[in-house]
């Protein structure tokens, strides 16, 4: 049995759901959860139900806003000599930036963005995509502990059974150390929706969208089904969408439960970034487009006709 810390991120009155996904795979280990900030009571209750023995809310000066140094120093100080064998976190914007720095401060190893893992005999072994998902490999960590792991959101799925533990809540005050790179302000993006990497449903547009204005029809569909809108590299390079929306090898690698590809031919670097989606719908006028080889449901048709019909149909269904 290993001693594991799951690093969670507070979001509204809950924590980001990837923390629950991770807990679901840690049955049989001794598991604590920590977050910087106050873990809401409802979230603490849920975390306990999913197997958290101790739940730590970490506080301190200059920790309200994420900074790589501040949060890394704080967690280093918190983890200290508690003897964790492993620290796991979601591969979110914060997790991706924070964990390597934290691992470096322990001179310890880290496995990035695993999509599955086991703890046979208390030892971590993971599976992760490389080359943007063109292949998979087994990943193991050696060297000094703790070992660090980030887990791709949506890859494990929410746990179906519960393994309730005490979930004792605790507040820890720690020192954020020296911070040299400060966040002066946050500029909100246009979208209040979930990030592509965390989205459960993605509606994505390609070169066939023809211009930026036409993304309106994708936004309408996305609003009805609660999706985040993405774009192919061709659409981004043509100026139809910002790079933050790009799905693929030089954009974001995503694994939603539903991916709707509209007017995307399916270049190898795009397929690499979305092939792990659970269900793929493709809409394209070219019946030989490579995207159809990956689609569970392919519609040979004009997206400008099909997408509005789909929006209407979903509206009727979800009304």
């Amino acid at each position, binding site marked *: 049995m290993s001693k594991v810390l799951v690093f969670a991120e507070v979001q509204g009155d809950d924590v980001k759901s990837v923390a629950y996904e991770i807990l679901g795979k840690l049955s049989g280990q001794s598991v604590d959860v920590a977050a910087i900030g106050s873990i809401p009571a409802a979230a603490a209750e849920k975390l306990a139900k999913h197997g958290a023995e101790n739940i730590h809310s970490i506080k301190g000066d200059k920790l309200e806003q994420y900074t790589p140094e501040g949060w890394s120093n704080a967690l280093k100080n918190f983890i200290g000599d508690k003897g964790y064998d492993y620290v796991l976190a979601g591969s979110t914007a914060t997790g991706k930036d924070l964990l390597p720095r934290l691992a470096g401060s322990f001179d310890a190893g880290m496995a990035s*963005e695993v999509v599955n893992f086991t703890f046979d005999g208390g030892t971590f072994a993971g599976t992760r995509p490389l080359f943007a998902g063109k292949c998979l490999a087994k990943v193991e*960590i050696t060297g000094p502990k703790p070992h660090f792991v980030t887990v791709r959101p949506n890859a494990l799925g929410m746990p179906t059974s519960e393994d309730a533990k005490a979930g004792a809540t605790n507040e820890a005050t720690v020192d954020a150390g020296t911070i040299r790179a400060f966040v002066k302000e946050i500029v909100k993006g246009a979208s209040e929706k979930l990030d592509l990497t965390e989205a459960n449903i993605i509606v994505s547009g390609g070169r066939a969208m023809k211009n930026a204005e036409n993304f309106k029809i994708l936004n309408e569909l996305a609003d009805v089904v609660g999706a985040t809108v993405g774009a192919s590299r061709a659409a981004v390079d043509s100026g139809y969408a910002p790079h933050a929306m790009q799905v693929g090898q030089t954009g974001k690698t995503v694994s939603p439960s539903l991916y709707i590809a509209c007017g995307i031919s399916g270049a190898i670097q795009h397929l690499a970034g979305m092939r792990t989606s659970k269900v793929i719908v493709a809409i394209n006028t070219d019946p030989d487009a490579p995207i159809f080889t990956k689609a569970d449901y392919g519609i040979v048709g004009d997206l400008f006709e099909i997408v509005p*019909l789909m929006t209407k149909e979903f509206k009727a269904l979800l009304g």
Partner: protein
Amino acid sequence: MNIFVCVKQVPDTETKVTPNGDGSFIETSSIKWIMNPYDEFAVEQALQVKAANADSTVTVLRVGGVKDTEALRTALAMGADDAVLVESADNLDSYMIAKALKGAIDKTGKKPDLVFAGKQAIDDDCLQVPQLLAQMLDIPSVSVVVGFEMNGSKLMLKREIEGGSLEVYEVETPVLIAANKGLNTPRYASLPGIMKAKKKPMAQHSLADVGVSDSDRRVKYSQFTLPPEKPAGKKFEAMEEGARAGVVKEVVGLLRNEAKVI
């Protein structure tokens, strides 16, 4: 100002990846190598800083196999002053690469003011080296940078987070910056640039020279496989106006009742 840029050489994005015979890595014999796409933004930003600051040098660093020096030659042709190559096998982990880069910087005898890198390499997609290197150099780092302004030793950096939102950082040199697409428009190497690059100095070190040994390995990979192929899906013909509504209704129904994702 001493500016360093870390580059990696990766398979071209159109490469079809196949695991090698024993699954210990991928087949590399027929791969076309390119500079990691995100590193191009790093090189470009370094060159822009150099252009705005007299007495600056841009040194480009790479850890990797020697059989092809495409990435370093490209950076030199774009305008970097000199290059350092640390020869290694292809399968180093992020910790070893970061430690080798740190050793290579130390060996130049120059104290870095700015260190640039791509936000991730598109081969192993670990997103670790920039943060690890900054930690080893004991300097701050800002990753996924899409906005860069510099005024003397003060910088304002925009880091892209979820949903296209930005964290705006204020920091003074020295700092490590991990570049994202959108930071700038990388220049192409000109023909005279390519000619000149051939005469620019390229230092070569072994891993041992920069203080890296097998005991620095932190991550081990094995069992490289192709992702499982999906069984063929259902395809519907809806080019004709009369077919559209029926097809859409059917697919939406299948998403609800068969795939159960809505």
